[in-house]
């Protein structure tokens, strides 16, 4: 029964993946924890909590669920929904401080974009340990005396996650398109839905075949900046124009021109173009969204400030860093893999890292910590008008 429930929750919430689904904030007891048991902390996205609970099976521990308004860890922390305040709040208000003698809390690594370990320590005395990216690695992480391997630190985009993404896009698309189709052209309901499901699957399943040809540095964001989930390239728009002119030409030649025909086929073409123009890079953990101007930012290391503390290496989800070596500082041999998440900048205790923009504008650590990343690229704007702030 439990297993059935778990599978059902996974299916339903994968279909609804675009919507944040909150669950209860607070403290959960797993197994029979004692005063020395580890304390884990995660966000309150319902699916995350279910998966983490499952991953923690067999470990006697406490799981704190902090308020992220139902957003997942990475989006929540990067977008300002999962913050220092939320972490401090569960540490303080759930009574965990009376239950354990130590003051170490294990956070998911991807929370490092928004939660400042140093700030948490100063305000609460709790030391943040960055756990693995994926819950499935928690058991190995615990067995490895709470040390992460390189693999546990990196985000991946395997077939299972790609299928999840395909479903995440296909489901809301098919619902909205079905509602419209039922009203205007019920006959095509089934074939259109077949198409809406098949296309994202094809796009995501065959991702490895064309991934080399994706260009995260393509210039300009254009009006895609305002389209929330669509990253319009020029090609799909030209194709749409061509298909519409073909449609008009065809109907003119065969003398079958009627407005309903044009509108119906125009709608079908539009749906296809929209699916093709989905923010593909933003749906992967290995690229920055094509909608963010932030993808042009570059990380710069100030070698004079670096003390090789290694926090950057611990929190980088792309394993860009190597720390130590003969010069005893951090280096970025994997810099080209960077997804501009900013975690390394946020966590560096010496402020040795910062972003530099395409026109040479500098985003210092204070700006990155303070202005979360969001749709309208406020972080970049903030950098521009940074000077006149009073608070």
């Amino acid at each position, binding site marked *: 029964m439990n297993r059935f429930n778990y599978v059902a929750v996974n299916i339903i919430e994968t279909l609804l*993946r*675009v919507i944040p689904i*909150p669950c*209860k*904030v*607070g403290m959960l007891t797993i197994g029979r924890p004692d005063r020395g048991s580890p304390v884990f902390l995660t966000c309150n996205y319902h699916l995350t909590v279910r998966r983490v609970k499952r991953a923690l099976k067999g470990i006697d521990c406490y799981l704190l669920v902090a*308020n992220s*308004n139902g*957003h*997942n860890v990475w*989006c929540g922390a*990067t*977008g*300002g*929904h999962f*913050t220092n*305040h*939320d972490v*401090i*709040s*569960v*540490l*303080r*208000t*759930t*009574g965990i401080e009376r239950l354990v003698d130590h003051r170490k809390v294990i956070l998911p690594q991807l929370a490092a974009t928004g939660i400042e370990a140093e700030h948490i320590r100063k*305000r609460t005395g709790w030391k943040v340990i960055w756990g693995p990216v994926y819950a499935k690695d928690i058991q190995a992480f615990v067995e490895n005396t709470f040390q992460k391997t390189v693999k546990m630190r990196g985000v991946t985009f395997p077939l299972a996650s790609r299928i999840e993404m395909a479903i*995440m896009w296909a489901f809301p698309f098919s619902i909205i398109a079905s509602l419209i189709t039922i009203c205007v052209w019920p006959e095509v309901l089934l074939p259109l839905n077949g198409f809406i499901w098949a296309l994202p699957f094809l796009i995501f399943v065959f991702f490895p075949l064309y991934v080399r040809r994706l260009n995260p540095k393509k210039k300009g964001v254009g009006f895609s900046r305002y389209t*929330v*989930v669509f990253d319009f390239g020029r090609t799909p728009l030209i194709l749409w124009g061509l298909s519409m002119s073909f449609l008009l030409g065809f109907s003119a030649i065969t003398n079958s021109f009627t407005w309903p025909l044009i509108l119906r086929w125009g709608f079908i073409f539009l749906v296809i173009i929209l699916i093709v123009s989905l*923010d593909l890079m*933003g*749906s992967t953990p290995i690229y920055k*969204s094509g*909608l963010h101007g932030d993808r042009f930012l570059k990380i710069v290391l100030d070698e004079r400030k670096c003390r090789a503390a290694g926090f950057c290496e611990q929190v980088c989800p792309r394993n860009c860093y190597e720390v130590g070596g003969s010069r005893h500082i951090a280096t970025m041999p994997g810099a080209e893999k960077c997804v501009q998440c900013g975690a390394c900048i946020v966590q560096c205790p010496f402020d040795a890292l910062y972003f530099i923009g395409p026109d040479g504008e500098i985003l210092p650590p204070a700006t990155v910590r*303070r202005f*979360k*990343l*969001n*749709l*309208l690229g406020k972080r970049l704007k903030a950098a521009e008008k940074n000077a006149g*702030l*009073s*608070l």
Partner: protein
Amino acid sequence: MKVLESAPDRYDAGIRILTFGRLDKSYDRLASHIKSGHKALDIGCGTGALTLRAAQKGANVKGIDVNLRMLEIAQKRAHEMHVTQNVEFCEMGVAELDAEESENYDIVMSGLCFSELTGYEVIYTLNEIKRILKPGGILLIADEVRPGRLSKRMFNRLIWLPLGIITYILTQTVTHAVENLPEMTEKAGFLIESVRLNRMGNFIELIGTKPGE
């Protein structure tokens, strides 16, 4: 997934529409308890609705909120109303109230904040308020609550759904009407001076005092 835009700029307008303007009247009534020279704390001050009212009465007010963008708007408004000398805004959550000294405030107030807190936080916050208020100090709360009567609760649910969706679209926060707020306040050791519910029974104005010695 990527709809991450937080929306303080729209917050004021959004809330005003959703509360049908009753909020301003509520805040005015609560602010009438504040006197010149009082030391006041506004928990979850947002864009400063209560803070600025108190400041205009001549109180020294500290407004705390977790949303930096809202605080920036509040600060701007304080500037426009020429009350910057007696207000202070601070990015701080309720769980950080332990940084405040004991018995330091004459007034602690909170508008539409408790409904954004989790159950643990509500209890923690009430206890902290009790600690930081001077004996005889006043607690002022205006917030959404769960109606006591079943019929009203059902009706409330019915109209909440569309309103909840609109609130979410406008402000990207969901509120959870607080249950048993007067009881919890009493349990935290306050004396309830008055409770005023609106006709729907879903909005409360609560005035409590910390017992004197």
